[in-house]
């Protein structure tokens, strides 16, 4: 079995993995990072989105061996000292979730989108989150949350 080293939410792990092990299963079943759910199993829904070396990926569509040597951030790695990341807080405050299953992926995809567009328009948000599905159809509040999260994050960054 190949041995991989991978950093997840700031902690370095060394694991022997079967080549066919998907990154999402490594996270959930070997490392206990169950904050990242498996949604569709067909690369469509984006619920399992995580950051891989700073860019969003669908962790059901990456093999654990492909993440060898990489840095992974999951929804569980966003908060600092028990307080929520501004984007998480915005989702909470704007009631941008009903069942919550898509939320971890939505939050990760939203943060990824802001790398390119720190103040996205509604259209840019809808386009930027096209790879993430919410079956409660809560998109209106999700869009609101991403705008609010973007504002909050801008404030954090520009604060002296």
């Amino acid at each position, binding site marked *: 079995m*190949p041995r991989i080293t991978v950093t997840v939410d700031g902690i370095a792990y060394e694991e022997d993995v*079967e*080549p*066919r092990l*998907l990154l999402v*299963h490594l996270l959930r079943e070997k490392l206990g990072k169950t904050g990242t759910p498996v949604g569709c*199993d*067909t*690369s*469509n829904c*984006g619920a399992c*989105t995580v950051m*891989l070396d700073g*860019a*969003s*990926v*669908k962790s*059901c*569509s*990456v*093999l654990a*061996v*492909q993440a*060898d040597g990489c840095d992974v951030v999951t929804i569980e790695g966003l908060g600092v000292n028990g307080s929520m990341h501004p984007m998480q807080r915005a989702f909470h405050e704007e009631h941008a979730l009903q069942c919550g299953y898509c939320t971890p992926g939505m939050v990760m*995809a939203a943060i*990824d*989108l802001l790398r390119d567009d720190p103040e996205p328009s509604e259209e840019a948000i809808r*386009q*930027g989150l*096209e*790879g*993430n599905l919410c079956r409660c159809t809560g998109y209106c509040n999700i869009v609101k949350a991403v705008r609010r999260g973007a504002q909050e994050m801008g404030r954090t960054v520009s604060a002296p």
Partner: protein
Amino acid sequence: MIPARFDYVRPGSVAEACQALASDEDAKVLAGGQSLLPLLRLRLAYPSTLVDVGRLPELKGVHDRGDHVFIGAMTTHDEVVRSPVVRDGCPLVALAAATVADRAIRHRGTFGGSLAHADPAGDLPAVVLALDGVLVARSEEGERDIPAADFFVDYLESSLAPGEILAGVKLPKLGAGWGFHYEKFHRTAQAWAIVGVAVALKRSNGAIAEARIGLTNMGPTPVRARAAEAALRGVELGDQVRQACEGAAEGTSPPSDLHAQPDYRRHLAQVLTHRAVRAASGSP
């Protein structure tokens, strides 16, 4: 589903990768995995070994080579879209690559991977065909150039030989006077194109001097809309363009699936070709 068992190797060079492929006919190349992993999960593919070339530096990057742009096969869609060399030299490629799937998939999926996968519903095969791109294949024997017209053989089948891997693609730079557009019709934001149309168009004195049109998902391979290309030659920009686009589906054999019947796809090909030609010509 969990994929069936396979072995995994990560060669340190293209030569090693070719060796690994040549020594095992059931081995398969793993690039970004965005097409292959879904197939593995659905157990539609049972490779013995995955040869992971995704990180090979010699297969990555975009290079300006004077009269053409060379895109390394393992350059991701995201890198293609962001590349100033691609935007300047081959705007059609940047336009189409920006519509591939979604952000997360574009971060992993590769330019070469989606061409070697040879899915006629993929956006890039029709683009490379429309631009008369040349695909560069490497094997233990060396390197050979394959014109796009000879590369796509059948559904999910390219003319890459066993033991050969796609190293990159040469895309001719089209000079001043050319306009471009990629028009795609799909059911949901990130779904495969039901039909897509890639257009490169040369204008001259208010008329169309030359049109090159590649069609996505209008047959088992990407195809050129030759009849429409011929009909558009010399046509003045304006009302006659629509009529010239009516032959866009001529000679195609579009598939039938749960999204569309062939006759609907033929209709779409006409409509989308007209839209794409108008957009490429700068008409509102």
